[in-house]
């Protein structure tokens, strides 16, 4: 299947269902062999923090779902540098086992290089 796709993850992990349902869409696309890269932008960068404990609010861990990504293929994960610094997050605080997350300065140029962009 064609159309190299970038999915932009903009939502914080537990405040709304968007982050979870977005990730479900990403996993479905990856499982179908579609080439999908991810860009974490704005509040979406909170999804990458490695010290989440959502059981305190009776939620399932979204971070654990992100860890399933490498099983589905060669996706590249990008995170916006200014989104991190605006929120006081050190790049060392973001971590997903088995995945290399690239910190990028210019999300616009990255987005422009894709044929299709999904937003969640």
């Amino acid at each position: 299947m064609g159309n190299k796709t970038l999915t932009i993850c903009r939502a914080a992990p537990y405040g709304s269902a968007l982050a979870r349902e977005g990730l479900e869409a990403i996993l479905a696309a990856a499982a179908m062999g579609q080439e999908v890269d991810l860009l974490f932008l704005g509040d979406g960068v909170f999804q990458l923090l490695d010290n989440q404990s959502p059981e305190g609010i009776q939620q399932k861990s979204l971070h654990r779902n992100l860890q399933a990504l490498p099983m589905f293929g060669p996706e590249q994960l990008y995170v916006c540098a200014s989104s991190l610094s605006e929120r006081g997050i050190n790049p060392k605080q973001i971590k997903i086992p088995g995945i290399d997350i690239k910190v990028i300065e210019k999300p616009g140029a990255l987005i422009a290089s894709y044929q299709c962009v999904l937003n969640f």
Partner: protein
Amino acid sequence: MKFSLAVYSAPHSSQSAASALRFAKALLAEGHEIYRVFFYCDGIQIGNNIAAPPQDESNLAREWQALQREYKLDLVICIAAAQRRGVLSQREAERLERPSANLAEGFELAGLGQLTDAVANSERLVTFGS
């Protein structure tokens, strides 16, 4: 040009759900093709046939249904998102042992693969709501 639409917002809650319908009408009026409309997240509420908006307000579901009949549109509602929020076909209601079915005519329930397929087979995908 071949378009697909992804609608994430519920009708009667935000403007973007109405904008999606108006955009679809504009596309068809200009002679473009709509490959699929995929309703996801709260957008799946469009398929709830027991919603009863006041007579003097717009009825988005009815308008989508009319458009579907006229242009044979593929209106797909994400089955997983719909199960969570309570929009079920007769078959799903029986399978999940729920007391009633409420999927509106003209819409069909299907998996997220239909969104992936729409991405792969459309020249443009336009998203409404977030």
